[in-house]
């Protein structure tokens, strides 16, 4: 099967669901979500039967290399989990939009992620600035809508506005940067750029770098690198929780894939590589420090996860800055895979719990271990994996990243990384502390968990441990 059909099917699925939503009345809107999950699941299964060789090697806008295919699956899994989360979150959404009757407006909440998913899938396959631009914009614009979705909630809209303005700003920089790269190379295709780059006169390199810098700004915005991370805490906190999870995993992962792809041709020239790696390392260091340190005093779970997401971006950037080491690429990939598992697990539990306790403050988790030991256990697994305790996927991810950094001789970055890992212990264990040490407040209802959530949580916990011991499946998928 031609890999390109994957996206087509996903888009068709989205359109079908929209049609059903519009023209079939009186159904439970959750059916849409289940349909979406099933459809995406099928696509995921189909992704194992594709034949990448059907894509011509010189295809300009689309590659189906192992990296792309891996991240297509990644996007699919992420979207499935977002939909699972959305089902539990739907009542909150419903209450925050002006609707007539039950379930009004919820249907689109289930379908928009599917379009985003298609965007992500295209994005990871994009190997031309034009396709990068359009697929990235598809993702971004659908995120604008999703962040703003609960339009009766001032917080949500504030988050959306901030995201939108800064996102548009970064789009401006991206376009302007592409312009300059095009201007200096006459090409928009990454492969072509790599080809012509050695012939570019040296005097033009400065202007080329100007363009690269602007593109990096836009990608830095996507992956939440310092100093382009400012939107992250506010938007994560304000956005609907499933969207936050999607942002923090899907959007970031696609950003990293694009970052890797975009940087690759420019590393052809050693003079550019040296400078880029240095700047990336500085950005990585700053991101690590900012994300992890600013997370220390946080009291709100979503905001905490936002800062932690910046911190993780720092580790990933550390991997990007260590591209000199052979294992850097697979390290980043593995880290992202692990990050998906543990972040979604955290958000799943968060959605389930905050629906009952009404809020995302860490203090709301007090005594969860005695009230709902399984939920607390799942959260514990997620937190220790995020903190990087062995036998979890998070540990191996960190291990691979640091190993790449050590192999590449980025010692001071490794040093900063070690310190921030310790900070991570502190703030992740704050959650554990709340759940396990603190006494539970009385008179709270039991916490119901839907079957889909239960299955997802169990699967994620299992996956975290399995990948923590046996990373080979992921590493093998990268070929």
């Amino acid at each position, binding site marked *: 099967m031609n890999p390109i059909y994957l996206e087509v099917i996903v888009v068709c699925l989205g359109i079908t669901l929209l049609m059903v939503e519009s023209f079939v009345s009186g159904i439970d809107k959750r059916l849409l979500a289940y349909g979406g999950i099933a459809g995406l699941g099928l696509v995921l299964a189909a992704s194992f039967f594709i034949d990448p060789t059907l894509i011509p090697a010189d295809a300009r806008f689309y590659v189906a290399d192992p990296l792309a295919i891996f991240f297509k699956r990644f996007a699919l899994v992420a979207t499935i989990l977002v939909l699972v989360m959305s089902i539990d979150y739907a009542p909150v959404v419903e209450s925050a939009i002006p609707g007539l009757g039950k379930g009004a407006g919820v249907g689109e909440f289930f379908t928009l992620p599917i379009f985003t998913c298609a965007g992500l899938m295209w994005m990871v396959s994009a190997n031309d600035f034009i396709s990068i631009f359009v697929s990235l914009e598809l993702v971004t614009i659908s995120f604008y809508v999703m962040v703003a979705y609960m339009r009766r909630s001032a917080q949500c809209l504030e988050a959306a506005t901030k995201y939108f303005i800064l996102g548009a700003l970064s789009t401006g920089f991206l376009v302007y940067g592409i312009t300059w790269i095009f201007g200096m190379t006459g090409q928009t295709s990454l492969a072509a750029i790599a080809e012509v780059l050695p012939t570019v006169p040296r005097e033009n390199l400065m202007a080329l770098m100007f363009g690269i810098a602007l593109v990096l*700004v836009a990608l*830095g915005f996507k992956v939440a690198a*310092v100093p382009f991370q400012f939107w992250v805490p506010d938007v994560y906190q304000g956005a609907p929780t499933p969207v936050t999870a999607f942002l923090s995993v899907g959007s970031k992962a696609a950003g990293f894939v694009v970052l890797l792809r975009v940087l690759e041709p420019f590393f052809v020239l050693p003079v550019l590589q040296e400078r880029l790696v240095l700047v990336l390392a500085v950005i990585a260091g700053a991101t690590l420090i900012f994300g992890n340190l600013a997370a220390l005093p946080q009291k709100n779970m979503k905001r905490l996860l936002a800062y932690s997401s910046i911190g993780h971006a720092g580790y990933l950037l550390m991997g990007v800055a260590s591209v000199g080491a052979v294992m850097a690429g697979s390290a980043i990939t593995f880290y992202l895979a692990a990050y998906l598992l543990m972040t979604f697990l955290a958000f799943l539990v968060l959605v389930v719990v905050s629906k009952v306790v009404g809020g995302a403050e860490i203090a709301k988790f007090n005594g969860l271990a005695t009230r709902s030991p399984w939920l607390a256990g799942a959260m514990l697994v997620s937190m220790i994996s995020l903190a990087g305790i062995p036998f979890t996927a998070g540990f191996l991810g960190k291990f691979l990243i640091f190993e790449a950094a050590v192999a590449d001789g980025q010692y001071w970055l490794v040093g900063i990384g070690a310190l921030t890992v310790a900070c991570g212990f502190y703030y992740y264990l704050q959650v554990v502390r709340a759940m396990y040490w603190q006494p539970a407040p009385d008179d709270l209802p039991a916490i119901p968990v839907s079957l889909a959530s239960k299955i997802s949580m169990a699967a994620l916990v299992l996956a975290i441990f399995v990948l923590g011991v046996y990373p080979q499946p992921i590493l093998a998928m990268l070929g």
Partner: protein
Amino acid sequence: MTPQTAPWFILLTPLVVAAVILFFGKISKPFSAGLAIAGAAFTCVLSWWLFAMPDFTDPIRIEWIDFARLLGPESTFQFAVPIGVTIDGLSKLMLVVVTTIATLVFTYSVGYMAKEEGYSRYFAGLSLFLFSMLGIVLADNFVMMFIFWELVGVSSYILIGHYFTRDSAAEACKQAFTVNRIGDFGFMLGILTFWLVTGTVVFAELEAGIGAFPSSGWLVAACVLVFCGTVGKSAQMPLHVWLPNSMEGPTPVSSLLHAATMVAAGVYMLARIFPILLAAPGALEVIGWIGGITCFAAGLMALQQDDIKRILAYSTISQLGYMVLGIAVAPVWGVAMFHLLTHACFKCLLFLCAGSVIMGMHHEQNIWKMGAIKNKMPFTFVAMVIGGLALMGFPWITSGYYSKDLIIEWAWGVGPGWFWMAALGVLLTALYTTRLLWVVFMGGPRSEAAKKAHESPIIMVAPLIILAIPSIILGFPGIQQMFLAIDHPHDVPGWVPWMLKAFVFLGIAIVIAIYRGAPAKDPIVIPFFANRLYIDNLYAWIVRWVQDGTATASGFFDRWFVDGLCVQGGAKFTWATGFVLRFLQTGNLQAYALFFGAGVIALIYFLIAIS
């Protein structure tokens, strides 16, 4: 039972006894006591039997640690610590002394401890002590000796601390152990030095190996370090302070451990390495001075003590000083061991008598609460006088006379300083011993208890009588030769022995003259002596200000600098940095845009700066 296996029976029986008492002691008091006494008597019999047997040269020896076996035969690395026994004249003599006195004291204890708490604990401790002491005696190498050295230390700790709920006893046992450990510090270093040079710790091989020392300085250093062990264990100056305090233990313990046997272990150890010491005259110099100073200074301290046991304790220190001096001055170890032998008998006797007095006085130990009890406790009185005379070295008829004068005569030839300290020590001995005997038994009763004093039961009196006999006869040349060989110095002027005899009589006379009436309290007060030359105070000061001071300072430093500033400060600083950093997230969109823009500028600036 062969002579080869007998030492092992001797060694292990008390250990088994101690273990059995520890686990099953609660069955009954007679069970504990009986088992302990039976064990001691068994070792005693075996010891005498062994004493009668000829020496043999192929003792059983097991390798406690053996690296040759661990690393395989091809390994060049050699290190072995055996557990073996030495059976020679020295160890056989010591075996006999230790087991015999132990048996007597064990028996005596039945009476003395009859009404005390911790009865089986007491007998378990005594058996443990006997095991450890026999280990020292039998040891054929330094490490084994050190092992048992430490074990006697701990059994001494247990027994001194028998009345552990008394604060004074609790402090005393702690002090005893700690001070001994200080001595052991040197001992251990000495052993290490010997091993470093000769590659062995076995006594027999050491003697052959001392030629390997690169310089005599190192040999002297090694010997002096080993001697530190003696200083601690045999309560020599300046580590003598623990012995008087150890009198907090039950009196039989004082008698057995802190008078007759354990404290003599130091001297025994010196005798054991005597051939090595002879090769290191510098070390003998140090040993002699320590011994001389100790026998004199301890005599001074004994003069002004009021506690019956403490007087005896200082006299023990003083006598141990003589023995140590004996090692330093004589060409054979027999001289020092001779005094050890006689001293073991008469000092044990004295302590047992003191115990009897204390029992009779209802646990009163202050001699100024006693008086005129000679008629009420006749056996005790006689026995104690015999012991006292032997201690003084009363001419011709006591064992102490022969052994002590021999050492002093040897000292004449080596150095006048040592000689005069030792000779004046004789006068001091006579003074404090007579004072003790006189105040306790003569004059008038000074308290109600003294009026109601009574003789002790037969089980306590019998050992007194048994011990009184050797206290007298052991010194007679004929009997002495049965136990050990000694040499007499040849160039001692004739007036020396007479002067010593005169000192004894002079001392007796002075005391009787002063204490003749029945003074209610000591007519002579010399605070310098009474306060033990202020050495204890000095140590207390050192412990309080130097040790505890540095400890407190270190603790403060650890808590507030290492932990407080560096660790917690670092953590707090990180947290605070995070706290400040997050204020960058002002929530204001335009500020974000501004920072964003600044980031863009910086990024462009750094990237286009390629050359």
